[in-house]
């Protein structure tokens, strides 16, 4: 399903840097995105993900390194010559123009024949189910419709690369989830490489073929969602992915042991421990119901630990009951070990 072999015909970033004054916003970033591949740039705010996107678009200047698209070096070229389309976080629709004019203006100014514009616009309007709001102004549209118009404007360009800057962040949580699959399908169908910036791990995992996790301008890890989740290379990636986030316990000197909340089990302290398992005594704090699952909060050796269990599971039942001392247990193979100083994965 995922074509992760990067072809030279897609987007290639080599040792891209951007510095402003003393600050390094992007630090030696190398990436490849093949045609038809969706890459998510994921990280907290200020991690350099938007700056990277703006460098690729040509809106910000790279300090060093190169950007190649479809085999051509585009590093120094002005945005207009890069054949790249971008969907902005604010959508950046022209507020004084109708939806139709928003879509056609760029084509008209590039002297595309009117008949062709007409046909393309109608095709894209139909594809994104926007026919009904053809003559409306952006202010008269809902958030989801505005997002679709912005997407339609990008699609019309038939660009060599799509850039999307948190296109869902202005939408309701529910709508965001519903649109994820639709957006993925449309982006896939273009056959162009796609770079998708987001700070939302669910969005990145749900939409992208591969995820690049950034922190302070540096690439932390690049890979498929499942790979990053199961085999994080450092503590930052382990913490950033997963919800609720991974529990980090100082079980060994100089090292932190990461345990995913879903790998922990609640058990009576009196029950025998299997040889492949480890256990810690725990004090119950409180419960959060998440529909079909339950997060139980525990205090273990002075730190707070979360356990994620199915609502029907024995763990959930024990967490609710109020009798007897309880333990959290886990299988040792699920442990992720990190060096405490550097955060680097040890084993």
């Amino acid at each position, binding site marked *: 399903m995922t074509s992760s072999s990067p072809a030279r015909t897609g987007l290639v970033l080599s040792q891209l840097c951007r510095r402003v004054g003393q600050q390094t916003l992007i630090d030696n970033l190398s990436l490849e995105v093949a045609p038809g591949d969706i890459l998510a740039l994921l990280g907290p705010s200020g991690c350099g993900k938007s700056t990277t996107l703006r460098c690729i*678009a040509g*809106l910000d200047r790279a300090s060093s390194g190169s950007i190649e698209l479809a085999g051509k070096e585009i590093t120094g070229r002005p*945005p*207009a*010559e890069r054949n*790249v*389309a*971008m969907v*902005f*976080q*604010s959508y*950046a*629709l*022209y*507020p*004084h123009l109708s939806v139709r004019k928003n879509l056609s*203006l*760029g084509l008209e*100014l*590039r002297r595309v024949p009117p008949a062709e514009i007409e046909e393309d616009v109608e095709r894209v309007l139909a594809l994104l189910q926007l026919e009904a709001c053809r003559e409306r*102004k952006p*202010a008269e549209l809902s958030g989801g419709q505005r997002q679709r118009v912005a997407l339609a*404007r990008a699609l019309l*360009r038939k660009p060599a690369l799509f850039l999307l800057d948190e296109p869902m962040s202005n939408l309701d949580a529910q709508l965001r989830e519903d649109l994820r699959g639709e957006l993925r399908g449309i982006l896939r169908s273009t056959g162009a490489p796609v770079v998708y910036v987001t700070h939302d791990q669910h969005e990145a995992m749900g939409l992208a073929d591969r995820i690049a996790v950034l922190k302070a301008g540096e690439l932390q890890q690049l890979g498929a969602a499942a790979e990053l989740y199961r085999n994080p290379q450092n503590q930052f990636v382990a913490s950033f992915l997963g919800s609720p986030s991974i529990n980090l316990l100082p079980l060994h000197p100089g090292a932190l042991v990461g345990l995913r909340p879903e790998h922990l089990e609640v058990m009576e302290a009196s029950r025998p421990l299997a040889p492949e398992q480890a256990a810690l005594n725990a004090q119950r704090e409180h419960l959060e119901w998440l529909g079909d699952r339950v997060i139980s909060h525990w205090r273990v050796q002075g730190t707070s630990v979360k356990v994620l269990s199915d609502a029907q599971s024995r763990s959930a039942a024990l967490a609710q009951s109020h009798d007897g001392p309880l333990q959290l247990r886990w299988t040792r193979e699920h442990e992720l070990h990190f060096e405490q100083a550097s955060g680097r994965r040890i084993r």
Partner: protein
Amino acid sequence: MLWQLYTSFRPSAVLTGGGRGGWTLEHYEQLLNGDPPFLTYLLNSGIVGLSSTALTLLLAIPCAYALSRMQAHRARNISVAVAAAAAFPAVLLFLALLEVARDFHLANNLLALSLPYAGLCLPLAILLLQAAFRDIPVELEEAALMEGMSLWQRLRWVLLPLMAPAISSAALLIFIFCWNEYPIALTWLSQADRLTLAPAIARIAGSSIFTVPYGAFAAATVLGSAPLLLIMLVFQRQIISGLTQGAIKG
């Protein structure tokens, strides 16, 4: 204002204190049939106002755009300098301007009068438009840039339409300033048929305040402000649509 309207329709005899009388158009007739007729003044003021407004906007829009897209720190210093220029007392420039007019033979030239007017209005216009440009999200312009639009196309299709309300109000302010401006017009214009409204009305009022022909003065006042009110009414729709647009955007 209403009192002026009333005065302008009363015979002179009534106004100066003697007797009672009906309504009259004598003041208006007097004005319109004068030499030169009053319409000449209106026309002159209109010419000066329009040319000054056009010239000011032509210069102010690029300056304001450049300032709004500059680095915050540099733009701030320039803005303060511009504000300082705006604050410079115009009265103190009269004499210098007069010499300029004489040396370059610009006296009694209505279009040339728009040069000092534009100069005086420019700083305020730049500040007004700069604030409006700054209110347009940069992302809008970046989107246009990504679509391959040139600077001129971005201005023409994206920025200026969004600036329409701000430009309208700036234009209105400039026009009103030029329409009402008195001291520079007084010194630059001496030929009777080249006078703009303000010096013309002042001339009607006479040099001493005790010999004022009230009726004629009131009529001139009415005639002189009528076009401005008309423009306000025309622009009103513009201003309202501007305000509405802002409300929707916000």
